[in-house]
Structures are given as C-alpha cells and as structure tokens.
C-alpha cells in the first residue's frame, strides 16, 4: 500500500543541537516534497519545498534533503531553539503537479529543551 511515514515518536533534543526529522514514502514518485510546521491549535505553515531533481535546499537554519532513490527526505534544524518546538509535517505531491494536491504524513512532534 502507499504510505508516508514520519518519525512516530516525539523527538526531544537539547537547545543548540541539530534536530533531524525523517519522512519516508513508498510507491510514490512525487514531483516535489514540502515541509510544514504546525503549532498547537493552529493551521500548518509552509517552510520549504524541494523538487525531485534537487538534492538539498536550505533556508536560514533549515535544511532539507530529498533522495528519490531511497524515497526519503530529511529535515534538519541546526542550532535548535525552544521556539522551534512544534509538529513538523512532510507533504508529497503524489499527483504529479495536478492542481497542487498533497498527501501529508502524520507529523513528528519536536520538543527543544533549554
């Protein structure tokens, strides 16, 4: 069956460390992959997009990698801060550019301790 899997357990790290979140998928060939942040009681907010022909994308302290052979994306937050604590969702364009429809993973809850 087609699946998107993110770290099922919450991730707890110390402030200043690098957080690494994983998004694995099967049986899809997405044209691109996106990462969103969601705070409690709020809607998701877009962070980064990486296309199938890109290996890595950076934005400030965020870095995303995309390995279409392994069917995996890694999301890194360097020099993490307590304000980075949130749930992070990966989303795949499995419909190959048909109207921007996305399939979301269940999300990984990140907690950064001071």
């Amino acid at each position, binding site marked *: 069956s087609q699946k998107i899997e993110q770290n099922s357990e919450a991730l707890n790290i110390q402030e200043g460390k690098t957080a690494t979140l994983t998004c694995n998928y099967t049986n899809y060939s997405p044209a691109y992959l996106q990462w969103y942040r969601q705070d409690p009681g709020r809607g*998701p907010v877009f962070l980064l997009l990486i296309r199938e022909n890109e290996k890595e994308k950076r934005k400030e302290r965020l870095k995303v990698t995309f390995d279409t052979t392994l069917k995996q994306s890694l999301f890194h937050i360097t020099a993490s801060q307590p304000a980075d604590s949130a749930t992070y969702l990966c989303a795949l364009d499995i419909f190959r550019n048909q*109207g*921007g429809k996305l*399939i*979301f993973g269940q999300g990984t809850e990140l907690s950064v301790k001071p």
Partner: protein
Amino acid sequence: DAGITQSPRYKITETGRQVTLMCHQTWSHSYMFWYRQDLGHGLRLIYYSAAADITDKGEVPDGYVVSRSKTENFPLTLESATRSQTSVYFCASSEGGPPYNEQFFGPGTRLTVL
C-alpha cells in the same frame, strides 16, 4: 482582513444535523482544499477545487458536500453529521500547479458531533 479565514472556529452539533463550515480567502488563489485532522491519521484531503465551479473528491469525501460559486469562498457541508466526523477541519488555498506553490492554511474549525 487579508488571508484565509474559517468560521465558525468551534462548533458542537448533534448526530443527523446539517452543518456548514465556511472558508474565505482574499488572495484570489485558484485552488482551495478541505482537510480533516485526526489523531493517528494526520491531515487527510476531503475535497479540493481548482477554480470556481470546479470541485473534485479527495481521499475521504464520503458524507461531505462542497460548492464553489465564487473564487474566494469554499464552504464544506456535512449533510447529516455523524460522530465519526468529529475532527478539526482545515481549509487551505494555493495558486496551484507549477511552480509548485505552497498551501496557505486557515486557523481550523474544531467540530464535535454528539
């Protein structure tokens, strides 16, 4: 107000009642989406719309009806609410298509069906 808004933010209803959740965006985005978010399932697409008068089913459309007579509005109706439709509902909009634009989410509507 600019952005994407949802109303009501909270709704309690009874089984069998009809409920309409409203979504309004001010960007004139072509694409709009309805998701539901449940523990253990993440975000699941209910319906989406590519433009006014164009709608299509997502992953979990049963029990829901949508319409889009104007670009800026995309109401979601539960024709006869069931307890299994208790969830948090998010509306999103996007310019859609290449170059792979991100989705902008509303604040969500928390619906409880008793």
